């Protein structure tokens, strides 16, 4: 008799799991209650047991694949060589078992002194990363999956390729998010070239005086954007379910690359901070161990591709936000002033905004305030 071993519904927040390792190979005898494969979800690593006594005949999935709950993953039969049908054949076409793919032994955790969440251990193992070389950002140095991802980014540049068998759930989540955003939010865009002459000079001076606390252009843009948002309360309004809500705090979310997608990191309203405290808040918000502000409800997202030399781009507004500011590279360009040619530092910044909430005038005011605040540092 044929028994189809299914991936159980593990409940919690997921209906799929990654097939981590086969613990048996085709031809092996299996007992009721004996683990035959190891799987992992975002939350746990666990083993799936056979519910039948018999012989493992064939895997219906492969190591590294992601399987949905309740889908069949293996065939077990009562006797070692009986004919069986594969699911989907309606039982009409008995088949011989396919020859075994080499199975693996049960993994033994090398947990000596290293504290890491299961997903981090699995990832590290897959990518051959030594966990003892990674500094954990969690409580008491707990290594998270994000820590491992970050360390792979460091050693393998950001040009990583997608390989068959890779876990594409993060990408799929991003796909769902941006699709929803473009579908739901009527975007419009406004671009200005802000002059950076004053801001650049101010930054040079700051960095000379504060060798231990350097400011980047991005820092200046974020602070100026927050101040501009404070000046333009009409832009700091959320919309959802037919309701509008005015926000007062100029909270910001920072878009940060994290292979294979990106993260949104909240930064609580920095407008009242001294520049020094603001820089510290920025470092904290973007640090791996950052105690991210839980009270911040940012409606403005800021994305910066200037460091890659991108001149200008338009960002997609993250769901739940009202606008997104896309910052390009700070570049030199000639400018005519009072009939004379001058050298000017400029940066193209583009505001994407939700037209259900604001109109072009509000966007233009905001960009005008950006220039004002960059000139008033």
């Amino acid at each position, binding site marked *: 008799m044929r028994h189809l071993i*299914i991936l*159980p*519904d*593990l409940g*919690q927040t997921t209906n799929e799991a990654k097939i981590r390792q086969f613990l048996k190979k085709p031809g092996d005898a299996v007992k009721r209650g004996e683990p035959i494969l190891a799987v992992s979800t975002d*939350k746990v690593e*666990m*083993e799936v047991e*056979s519910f039948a006594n018999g012989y493992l005949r064939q895997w219906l999935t492969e190591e590294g694949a992601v399987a949905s709950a*309740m889908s069949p993953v293996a065939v077990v039969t009562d006797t070692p060589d009986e004919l069986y049908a594969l699911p989907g054949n309606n039982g009409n076409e008995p088949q011989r078992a396919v020859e075994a793919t080499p199975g693996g032994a049960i993994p033994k955790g090398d947990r000596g002194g290293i504290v890491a969440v299961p997903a981090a251990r699995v990832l590290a193992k897959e990518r051959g990363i030594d966990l003892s070389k990674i500094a954990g950002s969690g409580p008491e140095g707990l290594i998270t999956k994000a820590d491992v991802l970050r360390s792979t980014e460091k050693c393998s540049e950001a040009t990583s390729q997608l390989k068959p068998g890779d876990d594409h759930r993060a990408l799929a989540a991003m796909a769902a998010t941006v699709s929803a955003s473009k579908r739901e939010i009527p975007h419009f865009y406004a671009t200005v070239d802000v002059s950076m002459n004053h801001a650049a000079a101010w930054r040079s001076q700051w960095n000379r005086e504060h060798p231990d606390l350097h400011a980047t252009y991005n820092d200046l843009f974020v602070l100026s954007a927050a101040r501009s948002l404070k000046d333009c309360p009409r832009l700091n309004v959320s919309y959802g379910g037919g309701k509008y809500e005015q926000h007062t705090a100029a909270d910001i979310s920072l878009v940060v690359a994290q292979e294979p997608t990106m993260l949104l990191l909240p930064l609580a309203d920095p407008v009242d901070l001294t520049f020094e405290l603001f820089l510290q808040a920025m470092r904290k918000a973007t640090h791996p161990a950052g105690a991210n502000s839980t009270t911040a409800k940012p409606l403005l997202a800021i994305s910066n591709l200037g460091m890659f030399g991108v001149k200008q781009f338009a960002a997609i507004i993250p769901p739940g936000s009202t606008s997104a500011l896309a910052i390009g590279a700070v570049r030199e360009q000639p400018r005519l002033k009072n009939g004379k040619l001058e050298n000017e530092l400029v940066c193209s910044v583009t505001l994407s905004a939700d037209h259900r909430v604001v109109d072009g005038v509000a966007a233009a005011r905001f960009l005008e305030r950006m220039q004002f605040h960059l000139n008033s540092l």
Partner: protein
Amino acid sequence: MTIPAIAKSSQLTKEQRKSLFRSLLLCRRFEERVYYLFLEGRMPGTIHQAMGQEACAVGVCSVLRQGDVVTSTHRPHQHAVARGLSVNSLMAELFAKTTGCCHGKGGSMHLGSLADGMLPAVAIVGGGIPLASGLGLAFKYRKTGNIVACFFGDGATNIGSFHEGVNIAAIWDLPVVFACENNRYGASTAIEKVTRVPHLSDRAAAYGIPGVTVDGNDVEAVRDAMTEAAERARAGKGPTFLEMETYRFSGHSRSDPGHYRSKEEVQFWKERDPVQRYEEFCLAETVLSAKEVEDMKASVEKELDDAVAFGESSPSPQAEDVLNDVYA
């Protein structure tokens, strides 16, 4: 390490012992059956199982009479089986069928039937405790002579409702037995990480009631302690805190592999398997012959086969049933 012998109770007849063993067996096999049905994808939902804790449910419930009531937790399967609810109605409930004890609308975490002596389980940790005291007050007020067996786990002893519920039962001498199944973990948190007293029963002193700790994997030890607590409750002398030291072999729920426990620790407790221990005791004491044990196992399997067939073939609730059995 030697495994302690069963604390042989002075008052039990051979028939009573047979009945205790069958009840232990039925609890264990019921849980196993549910687990494999879940693995096969035939039974929906994640489940909280109590394999390893059978002696607590069976020892406590074996003392109860008609009209007594059990309150239970998110881990209620064995309480229901040991209380004598029909296995058919329990299996049907787990399959979410209309023939279930809650007409298929309660599921694993709300098993129960007040008519059969079990309040549908309250899955909120500690949530059943004030209800048990309320039931006790009703019994006392109506002078029914009945008692309440209130099951909860070690984790519940750090919940506010535990303090309120036990205290009010204590000051009014309510007929309640607070039956604490100390399986050493509140989900994944070891009890000693969150509690300073070595025995949870020490806490009884704070309420001025007796506190007893027994081997929760010894069905006769549990039964003896429960007998004394029940007599006290029926005599109007108030509640007892009964701590039963036990262990769940499985994780907290199906999606918990239990990696926070060492293999040695699990092995230690598996050697003290309450069902296996009592089987060996019954054989050694000639309560049952080897043949009778096999027959009993076969009859339990048959009963469960029938229950699964009954549950799976029963009808599912229909859309028009949605407003039945609701108050508002």
